[in-house]
């Protein structure tokens, strides 16, 4: 029988079949309807992965939160390097209501060596950079209550529009801008119980990479990352959007395209055991930026660069400091 005929026959049989009644007769089609019926109590994939994530988060919280994180931080924090860090902080205050938590100037006071700002429930780290660490803008998916207001304030503060504010089919009102420092901000309000979707935070790193599938594989091998969702427009096409859990944080990513070209980012990643994670990352194909060492600011840290060019600063809080 031609596939088209079988398609129609099967669909008719499925439509005629009401749960609880015997499966209509008819050879091969009957067998398929009966199989379809046995799937009625199949779990939703979304539920299975969501529960898995919740359990992992709870296990992490029970095991290690107090000893490996600094107060206010989560597993992953974006680390942005921008020329004009002081101006960037002003921009973030003005547009997103950021709260400056820490500012460490260079000895001559001309630049910022390291700064931390808080927006909502999230931190962003940044610095002016230097020869060793050149500018490295980032893409941030930020959830706020008033997308329209923030979008307008961003334009007023010198940002350019990437995408005007509109309702998105996936249940968000969103618009995007590029700030004067080269960072992308995808500003959004989620329509639901909270303006932030479950599992995400105010600030979420969005990695635009060439080779998203390879990056996900690397993150799984090196960092025990967990794939939560992967969306492709075509089964064989590039990954348009994926969400990956690292520790207690979800990171978004997608294949670079058009104005969203590859944008290697910097991320600060708290782990329970820096040395072990560093070694696994190198084995999984990362290059070393710096080997594990105790840092004067109370962390044991190391740096690696993945093949897509993202820099990962893996760290654990030294006990004396925790």
């Amino acid at each position, binding site marked *: 029988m031609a596939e088209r005929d079988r398609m129609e026959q099967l*669909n008719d049989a499925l439509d005629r079949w009401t749960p609880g009644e015997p499966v209509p007769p008819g050879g091969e089609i009957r067998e398929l309807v009966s*199989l379809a019926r046995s799937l009625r109590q199949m779990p939703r994939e979304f539920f299975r992965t969501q529960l898995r994530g919740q359990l992992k988060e709870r*296990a992490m919280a029970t*095991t290690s939160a107090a000893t490996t994180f600094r107060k206010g931080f989560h597993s992953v924090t974006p680390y942005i390097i921008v020329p004009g860090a002081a101006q960037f902080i002003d921009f973030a205050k003005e547009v997103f209501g950021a709260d400056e938590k820490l500012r460490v100037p260079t000895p001559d006071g001309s630049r910022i060596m390291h700064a931390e700002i808080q927006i909502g429930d999230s931190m962003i780290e940044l610095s002016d950079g230097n020869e060793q660490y050149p500018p490295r803008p980032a893409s941030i998916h930020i959830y706020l209550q008033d997308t329209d207001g923030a979008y307008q304030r961003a334009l007023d503060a010198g940002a350019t529009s990437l995408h005007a504010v509109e309702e998105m089919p996936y249940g968000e009102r969103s618009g995007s801008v590029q700030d004067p420092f080269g960072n992308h901000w995808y500003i959004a309000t989620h329509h639901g119980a909270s303006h932030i979707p479950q599992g995400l935070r105010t600030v979420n790193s969005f990695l635009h990479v060439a080779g998203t599938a390879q990056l996900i594989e690397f993150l799984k091998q090196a960092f025990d990352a967990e794939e939560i969702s992967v969306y492709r427009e075509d089964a064989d096409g590039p990954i348009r959007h994926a969400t990956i859990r690292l520790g207690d944080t979800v990171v978004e990513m997608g294949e670079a395209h058009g104005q969203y070209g590859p944008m290697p980012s910097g991320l600060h990643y708290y782990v329970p055991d820096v040395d072990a994670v560093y070694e696994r990352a190198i084995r999984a194909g990362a290059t070393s930026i710096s080997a594990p060492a105790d840092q004067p600011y109370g962390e044991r840290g190391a740096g690696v660069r993945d093949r897509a060019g993202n820099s990962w600063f893996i760290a654990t809080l030294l006990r004396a400091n925790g």
Partner: protein
Amino acid sequence: MDPPEERLLIEAAQRDLTRFADLYDLYFDRIYAYVARRVGDRAEAEDLVSDVFHQALANLRRFEWRGAPFSAWLFRMAANRIADRSERLGRERAIEPSPEFEEADQEEAHDRAKVFALVRELPEDQRKVLELRFAEEKSLHEVAEVLGRSEGAIKQLQLRGLENLRARIGGKHG
């Protein structure tokens, strides 16, 4: 899975709770199949399954290896939650099923869990169509709308998905 292997997984998870995910992956489908069969409503089945695994994680370090499989512990907790629920709903607490009946139920759940795992191995678009169309009992039209495809494409995917699944089930058993 061999009991010694299962034991290693449990002990690893007891030392490092984040390894509980391995146990979850191993038993999720079985527990879900067991609960869904007894509780018709999907949302309630999901709540109960979620409770069972949260309870298992919270009490994992208390679990003592005495030769009984870990799954028996999970099934026990699931059965208790289901009984609590019927009590809460004001129904009479069901009479404890006989051990033979209980065992047959668990085995049946095990068989259905294998089919769920095979569905997960199907190409993504076929898997999605089977899930929306049969697990969530959506109409052809609704599935087409959710996935942004034509109804013809959904008809083709549901046929291919079911044929593919049948072939895989045949392959596993034969």
